[in-house]
C-alpha cells in the first residue's frame, strides 16, 4: 500500500534507507544517517550490519540513539570493541561497504565540511570538526550522504575540506591514491542524486513525489545537473512510513525523560 501523506524529511529518510542492502556493512555517521540506517534494518534489510564509531558492531537499537554511544547500541550489538580497534580493524581494515554521512556543508562533488564556516584560524562559525568522517570517506567501499537541502548547506565552494569526496571531480580521487569509490549517492528531502560515472558530479536521478526541478534548484547553491531521465521516487510504503513513525515516537519518548535541570 502506498502512502500519500508524508513529510519531505520522512521521504528523505525512507529513500536513503532503501539504498542499503541486506548484506551491507554500514558505518553510521552521526546525525541524520542513523534514522535511515535503522529504517533499512527494520524493513527490507533485517541483516544489515550497522556499525557506530563508539565501537558497537551489528547493533539493533529499538530507539534512535541521541549520541553515537548510547547504552542501547551496546546492549543490542553483536560485539563492542574499543575505539582504536574500531578505526584500525574495522574501518581502516576495509570491512565496511557503506559509510553513511550527513553534512553541514557540501559541494557538487561530495566534498564535505563540518569544520568551520569562514577561515580556519578565524572562523565565523566553529563546527564540531571531522570526527570519524575523514577516514570514513576514504576507507568505506562507497559513501552515501543524506541531508536536508538548503543554499547554506549545498554550496558552490565549501569553506573547508573536512572529508574528501571527488575533489575537483573527474579522477581527482584516484590521483590521490584513494582506491574506494567515494560518494555514489546523496538523498535529500527533495531528490535522489547519483554520482556521474565520469565527472563524479552529483546528478538528480529521482525527484520525490510532488517535487519539481525548480524546487531542487531553489534549495541548492550550485547549478543542479539532472539525469537524462529523471523518474519519481517511489513514495513511502505503509510499512516504511509506519516503521519510521513508530521509531520516531519511541525515540522521542525515550529521550525526553524527566529533566533534572540541576546538572549537565
Amino acid at each position, binding site marked *: 500500500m502506498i502512502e500519500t501523506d508524508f513529510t519531505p524529511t520522512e521521504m528523505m529518510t525512507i529513500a536513503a534507507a532503501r539504498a542499503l542492502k541486506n548484506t551491507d556493512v554500514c558505518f553510521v555517521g552521526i546525525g541524520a544517517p542513523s534514522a535511515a540506517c535503522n529504517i533499512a534494518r527494520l524493513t527490507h534489510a533485517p541483516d544489515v550490519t550497522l556499525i557506530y564509531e563508539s565501537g558497537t558492531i551489528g547493533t539493533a537499537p529499538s530507539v534512535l540513539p*541521541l549520541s553515537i554511544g548510547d547504552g542501547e547500541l551496546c546492549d543490542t550489538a553483536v560485539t563492542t570493541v574499543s575505539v582504536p580497534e574500531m578505526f584500525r580493524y574495522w574501518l581502516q581494515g576495509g570491512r565496511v561497504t557503506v559509510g553513511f554521512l550527513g553534512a553541514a556543508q557540501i559541494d557538487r562533488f561530495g566534498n564535505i565540511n563540518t569544520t568551520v564556516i569562514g577561515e580556519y584560524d578565524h572562523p565565523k562559525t566553529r563546527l564540531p570538526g571531522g570526527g570519524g568522517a575523514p577516514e570514513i570517506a576514504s576507507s568505506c567501499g562507497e559513501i552515501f550522504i543524506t541531508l536536508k537541502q538548503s543554499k547554506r548547506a549545498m554550496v558552490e565552494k565549501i569553506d573547508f575540506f573536512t572529508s574528501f569526496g571527488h575533489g575537483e571531480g573527474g579522477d581527482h580521487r584516484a590521483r590521490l591514491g584513494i582506491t574506494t569509490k567515494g560518494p555514489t549517492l546523496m538523498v535529500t528531502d527533495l531528490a535522489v542524486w547519483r554520482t556521474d560515472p565520469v565527472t563524479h558530479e552529483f546528478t538528480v536521478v529521482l525527484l520525490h513525489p510532488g517535487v519539481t526541478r525548480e524546487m531542487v534548484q531553489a534549495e541548492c547553491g550550485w547549478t543542479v545537473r539532472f539525469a537524462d531521465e529523471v523518474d519519481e521516487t517511489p513514495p513511502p510504503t505503509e510499512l516504511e512510513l509506519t516503521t519510521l513513525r513508530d521509531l520516531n515516537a519511541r525515540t522521542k519518548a525515550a529521550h525526553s525523560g524527566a529533566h533534572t535541570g540541576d546538572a549537565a
Partner: protein
Amino acid sequence: MAHFMTLPEAVAQNLNSGDTAAFEGFTHLIPHASAHEALRQGIKDLTLVRMTPDLIYDQMIGMGAVRKLIFSYAGNPGVGLLRRLRDSVENGWPHKIEIEEHSHAAMANAYEAGAAGLPFAMLRGYKGAELARVNPNIKSVTCPFTGEELAAVPAIRPDVTFIHAQKADRKGNVLVEGIVGVQKEAVLAAKRSVVTVEEIVDDLSAHPNACVLPGWTVTVICEVPGGAHPSYAHGYYPRDNASYIAWDRIAADRDTFLAWMKENVLDATPEVFDDRVSHLRSRS
C-alpha cells in the same frame, strides 16, 4: 599500586596548572565529577586532550581553565555545537584557546601509540582532508616494503588521565564494560591516572577478556557514585539525555552559564553526583 583517596585529594595531588590532561570517555563513562573538581580547585592553563570534547570541556573552556585543546569532534552529541567552545574560538571569551585538531582515527591511533610506548602512530588517513594543511602535527611515513605513504601523528602522552569506570576491587584493579572507548589506552598512555568508580567491591567478577586495568597501572582510585552524570555508567544508570539537551540553553548565554557553573559546580561537591543519578537508576 593504586592509592585510594577522595576526589579532592586525587585532583590536588595529580593535576597541576599547565598540565596536559585527558578526561576521556566516548559518550559513556565521561568523568564529569573529576572535571568539576578540577574547576573547583582553580586549575588553569591546561592542555586538554580528548577525542570528543563535550560538556565538561565546554565548561572548562568557558571557565577559562584551558590554554589548548587537542581533539577530533567537539559537539554536544545529538544536540548541537559547544557554545562555550565557540565563544572562545570565535569571540575570544574568556580567552581564545589554541586548537590542535585531528580526525577520530588519528586520535584513537595516537592514544594507542601512547599506550604502546611508540613515539608516533601511523594510519591510512587524512587523504584529501584539509586538516593535514592546518595541523603541522600531521606528517607522513613511507612503507619500506610497498612505498605507500601513510599519515603519521605524534603519540598522545598526557601528564594525567582521568576516567570514570564501573568498579574497582580493593587491590585497585579497575573494570570498564560496555562502550569502552579509548579509556584503557588513555590511562596506559599517561604518566598518572585518576579513576573514579561507581563502587569498590571485593571481587570484580570480570570476564577473563574484559577491559581491566590492573591496580599497578592506576595512580588513584576514588569512589564517586554517579560520577559520570549526565553521561552514563552501563549497568548503573542510563544517559541523562535531557540534561544534554538542557545544556544547549545553559551554555548559550555567558551569564546563564556562569550562574549555572557557580550553583552546580563551584558550590557543589563530588557527593552531589550520587543524588543526580538517583532518579535514573531505576531506568538502568
